[in-house]
């Protein structure tokens, strides 16, 4: 079972994870990751732009690669796009598996690829206006671990 979605509105990671866990109570292991807009650093808002013809198909491809690579019973990837405020969730990923390292590694793999290989452009609003964000070099290094 694979559930890959984009949303333009806010969502509750706890609710999403609760639904996912109930759907996978027969799996021994469930791992998850939630990314939130970090408050502080003068950031007033965050905006994620996507390109519809590429972004969701690209996320599906990343999810399929995770399912090929690890033995999973289920995989969830939900990503918000548009403008969001500090403290609001951006992304939630969850994986269910018979064994814990499959679940944990699938989440790790998904996040590294969503961060650096998915079609999102991010900019932060500060007091002096909007600033585009580039991937950090550590993101590229994290991605290269899977090659």
């Amino acid at each position, binding site marked *: 079972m694979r559930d890959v979605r984009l949303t333009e509105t806010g969502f509750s990671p706890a609710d999403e994870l609760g639904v996912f866990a109930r759907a996978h109570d027969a799996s021994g292991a469930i791992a998850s990751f939630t990314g939130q807009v970090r408050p502080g650093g003068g950031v007033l808002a965050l905006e994620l732009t996507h390109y519809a013809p590429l972004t969701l198909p690209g996320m599906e491809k990343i999810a399929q690669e995770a399912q090929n690579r690890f033995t999973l019973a289920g995989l969830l990837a939900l990503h918000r796009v548009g403008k969001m405020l500090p403290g609001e969730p951006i992304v939630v990923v969850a994986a269910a598996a018979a064994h814990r390292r499959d679940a944990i590694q699938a989440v790790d793999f998904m996040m590294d690829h969503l961060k650096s290989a*998915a079609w999102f452009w991010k900019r932060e609003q500060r007091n002096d206006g909007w600033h585009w964000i*580039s991937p950090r070099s550590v993101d590229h290094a994290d991605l290269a671990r899977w090659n």
Partner: protein
Amino acid sequence: MIKVVYLGQLADMAGTAESEFAATSGAIDWADLLALLENHVAPHLAEAVQADTVKLAVNGRLLADRAMLDARDGDEIALLPPVSGG
């Protein structure tokens, strides 16, 4: 008409999220696109999209080589700078 979509910083440079061009000859190749961007959208935009890190998609399919661009009436070209992830 052929639609051109600007993503990320390229939308800022273009001053718009997208443009539409009439393909008088029936098709637009890479050199045509650069000339249109330079003359009708914004100075320096043609230069910016020539960076190796900018990808090109036509109707949602990435082009392996920009020199292969051959957009026809009704097509959508996307200019994709490096992603910044989630």
